[in-house]
């Protein structure tokens, strides 16, 4: 018997990568999944944080895909290395701060390294020509293959018939005739294939693969960079960008105000690293200050936070200020009236 060939499939949690892996697995290839965690992934986070989403299933879509496929899944933390992709994408950004083409190249090259270490023969992605305006075009397909170093060991089962033959096809590890020639933005062929393969209960997760394609998120990330005078972030920064109301009343600091209980609980975990504000005389949200501040800044922040508390119409609101492991102190302020809140402050 011929040796069973091994392929590693990039699993995003979306339908296309699920189908691509399945199509190859059905041809008798041993398939394992790989999923990259960049820190920007939409996965579960927001559900985990926001209380109103508590009842939604907090499943990780990539894990769920692997379960449905009956394959192993390796989740790789690329948070640190990925920063360079976000800071300096050689092929530029998409509509927002999404460096999709560089991201694809990076992930495929990581998968290639992984495959080489484990003696896997080729790599599978769920890419479809024309599906995405930036990273999945006919002319970008060879760019990903080449710049990732995967070359003809990169197989896209969903559109392979529209592309030159790859090594697994030439060698007969997979049968090209049983691959597909999908193209364009339509989702119909994928939906039909999903039905045929018994994935009809598949629900398309809202949004793209990551927060970088989100306009509001990108605005907040850009603001973070502008305020620092350089493109730089830590994992905590990009986590916090997913949570709460962000206002920048002064160039040197911004305030992050929880919008509901779940977010408050999440922000709670950051109280040792940031100055935090919490109303005590009235019910109100927890808020963090990000930046270097003086007493006047803290008072301004306190007035803003009071505005988002139940004491917004009160003469005075008392808050507890705690920060950087210093003992908490008390501050009493007059809530800021709406007219004093510059709409520009809202990020």
């Amino acid at each position: 018997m011929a040796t069973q060939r091994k392929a590693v499939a990039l699993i995003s949690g979306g339908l296309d990568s699920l189908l691509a892996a399945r199509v190859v697995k059905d041809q008798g290839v041993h398939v394992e999944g790989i999923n990259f965690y960049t820190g920007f992934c939409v996965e579960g986070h927001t559900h985990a944080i926001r209380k109103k989403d508590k009842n939604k299933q907090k499943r990780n879509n990539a894990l769920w895909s692997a379960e449905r496929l009956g394959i192993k899944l390796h989740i790789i933390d690329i948070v640190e290395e990925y920063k360079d992709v976000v800071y300096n994408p050689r092929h530029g950004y998409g509509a927002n701060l999404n460096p999709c083409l560089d991201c694809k190249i990076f992930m495929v090259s990581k998968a290639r390294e992984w495959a080489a270490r484990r003696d896997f023969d080729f790599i599978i992605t769920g890419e479809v020509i024309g599906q995405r305006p930036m990273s999945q075009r006919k002319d970008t397909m060879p760019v990903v293959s080449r710049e990732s170093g995967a070359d003809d060991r990169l197989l896209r089962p969903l559109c392979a018939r529209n592309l030159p033959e790859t090594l697994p096809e030439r060698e007969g590890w997979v049968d090209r005739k049983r691959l597909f020639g999908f193209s364009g933005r339509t989702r119909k062929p994928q939906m039909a294939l999903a039905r045929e393969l018994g994935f009809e209960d598949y629900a398309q997760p809202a949004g793209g693969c990551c927060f970088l394609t989100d306009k509001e998120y990108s605005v907040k990330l850009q603001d973070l960079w502008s305020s620092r005078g350089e493109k730089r972030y830590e994992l905590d920064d990009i986590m916090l960008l997913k949570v709460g109301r962000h206002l920048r009343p002064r160039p040197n600091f911004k305030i992050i105000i929880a919008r509901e209980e779940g977010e408050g609980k999440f922000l709670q975990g950051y109280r040792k690293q940031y100055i935090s504000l919490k109303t005590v005389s009235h019910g109100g949200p927890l808020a963090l200050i990000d930046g270097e501040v003086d007493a006047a800044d803290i008072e301004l922040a306190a007035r803003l936070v009071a505005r988002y508390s139940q004491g917004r119409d009160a003469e005075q609101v008392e808050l507890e200020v705690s920060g950087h492991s210093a003992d908490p102190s008390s501050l009493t302020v007059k809530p800021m009236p709406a007219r004093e809140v510059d709409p520009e402050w809202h990020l």
Partner: protein
Amino acid sequence: MSDIQVDARRLLCPMPVIRVQDAMEHLRPGDTVTAFCTDPGALNDIPAWCHINGHEVVERREQDDEYIVVVRVGASG
């Protein structure tokens, strides 16, 4: 048989899964890993990951706002 403790507090999924996965990489079948998490998603994700990778979930419990999952390295791990 050794038991490794993984502190995944304050980490959001899938980071707790990654921490467990990395901790298990150099363990032998039968060894256990105890993960301490604050993201409730870990209660689903760690078992799901174990299930597909051939490891066994020995215990999952909630204690003082923390979620604790104990897993045992499987034979094929």
